[in-house]
């Protein structure tokens, strides 16, 4: 056990802090997408090695060696000083690693640099109305017509579709192959004719996602990543990364701090809510669970740094545990506020900008999204505990039992 980062890293931390102090006044606060300000900051960050740190320099990254602790220090220092850490999005978190792994040289050259610089924004076209938990059941079809794929079908849960320049998309190209083997991974511009975007309003009242419809969308043949029919494999090399990030224990601690503050501020009949024992006990229960989640996260970080692997279960449980815990944390805030906890929209009595109620619902969405809790339990029991897969069924039935 050694929870210090060591002298070398404390030196690195000092460097980051120095950079941040120097850019304190010039770093943008809430830069607009594609703005000169945003792109310029992105380039500054890459050059300094605080963004796209390990992406090869030839594709526009910083070209540094992977070092999880350095990444962590960067994240910690940017968070501490509340400095904008650079543009995120699925292009950067998902497409870039995918291209680095499976893209052609030409694709890497064409797409990675503008994506990293924030000049090219992406959305992801995976889920479909009929393909949620069973993602591989997707039916959006791409048929080769000369030198072009002709895409028809519908995607759902596509965030930032209205903003994106391009989409990376799973489509079925071999309708007769077994379901995992007939899928290909296509890239195409969102300006291509035949694409319709419909905002998908969710229970929070916002359109955090969209539905995207394709009608005879024509895509140049070479805009495929990996071989034809191997899209499932291409996508899955990085799909798992998405899941863990839904349950960040540091974000959880941040919310917990806010929750304590809320309970110390809100009153009922003049009594602070934190002085009501049943609420305080719930707060303490959640505190204990957040502490456990943070320790587990520390263990995973250590495993990554030291490449000790060795605790697959510790990684597998984070999405299930984290999203449910977060939902309950937000629920306590809502309950603690009583009727005030119902305030929403433009109600002037909103606490925390209405974030408690929003996050309470949003995290119910995350319990479902990115692999429902039921799917997570399948994964934990099958891959983590070595229990049998769901057996093959003789026949699907729509009928209830007698």
């Amino acid at each position, binding site marked *: 056990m050694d929870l210090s980062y060591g002298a070398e890293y404390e030196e690195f931390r000092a460097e980051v802090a120095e950079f941040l102090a120097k850019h304190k006044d010039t770093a943008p606060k809430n830069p607009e997408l594609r703005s000169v300000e945003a792109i310029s900051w992105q380039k500054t960050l890459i050059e300094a090695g605080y963004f796209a740190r390990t992406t090869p320099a030839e594709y526009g990254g910083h070209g540094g060696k992977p070092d999880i602790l350095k990444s962590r220090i960067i994240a910690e220092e940017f968070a501490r000083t509340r400095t904008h850490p650079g543009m995120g999005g699925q292009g950067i978190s998902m497409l870039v690693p995918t291209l680095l792994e499976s893209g052609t040289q030409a694709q890497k050259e064409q797409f990675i640099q503008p994506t990293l610089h924030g000049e090219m924004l992406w959305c992801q076209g995976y889920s479909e109305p009929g393909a949620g938990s*069973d993602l591989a*059941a997707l039916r959006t079809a791409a048929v080769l017509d000369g030198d072009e794929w002709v895409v028809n079908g519908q995607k759902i849960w596509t965030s930032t579709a209205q903003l994106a320049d391009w989409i990376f998309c799973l489509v079925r190209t071999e309708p007769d192959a077994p379901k995992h083997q007939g899928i290909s991974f296509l890239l195409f511009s969102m300006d291509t004719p035949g694409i319709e975007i419909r905002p998908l309003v969710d229970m929070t009242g916002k359109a955090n996602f969209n539905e995207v419809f394709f009608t005879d969308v024509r895509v140049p043949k070479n805009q495929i990543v990996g071989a034809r029919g191997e899209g499932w494999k291409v996508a899955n090399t990085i799909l798992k990364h998405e899941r863990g990030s839904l349950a960040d224990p540091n974000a959880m601690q941040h919310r917990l701090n806010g929750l304590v503050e809320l309970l110390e501020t809100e009153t009922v009949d003049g009594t602070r809510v934190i002085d009501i024992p049943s609420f305080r006990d719930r707060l303490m229960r959640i505190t204990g669970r957040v502490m456990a989640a943070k320790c587990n996260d520390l263990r995973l970080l250590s495993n990554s740094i030291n490449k000790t692997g060795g605790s697959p279960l510790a990684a597998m449980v984070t999405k299930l545990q984290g999203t449910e815990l977060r939902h309950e944390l937000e629920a306590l805030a809502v309950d603690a506020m009583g009727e005030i906890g119902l305030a929403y*929209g433009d109600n002037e009595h909103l606490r925390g900008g209405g974030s408690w109620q929003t996050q309470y619902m949003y995290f119910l*969405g995350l319990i479902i999204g990115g692999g429902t809790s039921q799917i997570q339990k399948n994964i934990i029991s099958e891959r983590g505990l070595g229990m049998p897969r769901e057996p093959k069924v003789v026949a699907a039935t729509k009928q209830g039992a007698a």
Partner: protein
Amino acid sequence: MEFGLSEEQTLLQDSVKRFLAEQYPLDKVREFATNDDDGAIVRNGLAAMGITALMIDEDHGGVGLGLLDAALIAEALGHGTAPMPFVASVVMVPQALMLGGSSEQQDRWLPKLAAGEITAGAAISELTGARGDTGVTATNGRLSGRAMFVLDFEADIYLVADTNGALHIVDADAQGLSGKGFNTVDCTRKLGELSFDNVPAEALSCTAQQVATVLNSGRVILAADSLGAAQNMLDQSVAYALQREQFNRVIASFQAVKHMCAEMAAELEPCRAMIWYAGHTADAESNANNNSNNGEAQQYALHTKAHLSEVCQFVARTATEVHGGMGFTDLVGLHYWFKRIGANRQLLGSPERLRDDAARALGMVN
């Protein structure tokens, strides 16, 4: 001995359900939520069916039914997420008038309420926990202060509780009264807040126990509303699971989904009988006209609201999970029920508070 609904009760409940299913489909729920519809069709339709006259005595143009009957209607309203002024307008305010109103007051208001000509709100939430600096004080028949969480807002008259726990009737047009909507996550009903600046008011002469009775009636009604909403969510879940296919099977054939539905049913089904009992025992105590009651109605009202709040929250969450991503969207609209249940949970006392009240009522708290 019979513990169940009479044919008339079942018919009445079914007729409200049917009316809502026909007149107030999901599209209408959405329109009301976005203020594109004012709910008049539901309000007028149900008034025409006599719902507004439900608890008012026959001498004042009502039909003189009890809390159990009102709870059955509330269940139907929750089932259909109806934008009906009910808990205050049809139950609490008429009851307060009947218990503590002068005959002049009763003659003035009850027939109009019974006929659905006017609606009544209740600014009484501070009795179950005042938040921040709210509270209304009464001096020489005039009210000053602020009331939040006014039930059945945008009414013609309001029942107002002052900080001493006494009740008053205030005309919505009274001088010095101003109000505004209190927007909540639940967009299926209206909540509001009222400010009082030396507002003329008519006092009612309710005893503390009568005030408690009025509050408890409201609690049973909100619990019944949640029961209806949760039952609807369970039914929708089973129906959705029976048609949604994943992995070449309807998801209703997965044991995990089946068990989620079974757990919802197992928690929810006993709640139905609990609502019946809570309504029945309140009516029995009220008919006995017995102020030295044994407190059973009080215990049932508190526990029914607390228990159903917990159960229905569980159902709301689980039903959403059964629907997968669809449950999170506005496409199936499941969230309207989810949020209505969430609102009922907080109004007129959260479960934690009601359990504490129940313990206090039994003298358990030193």
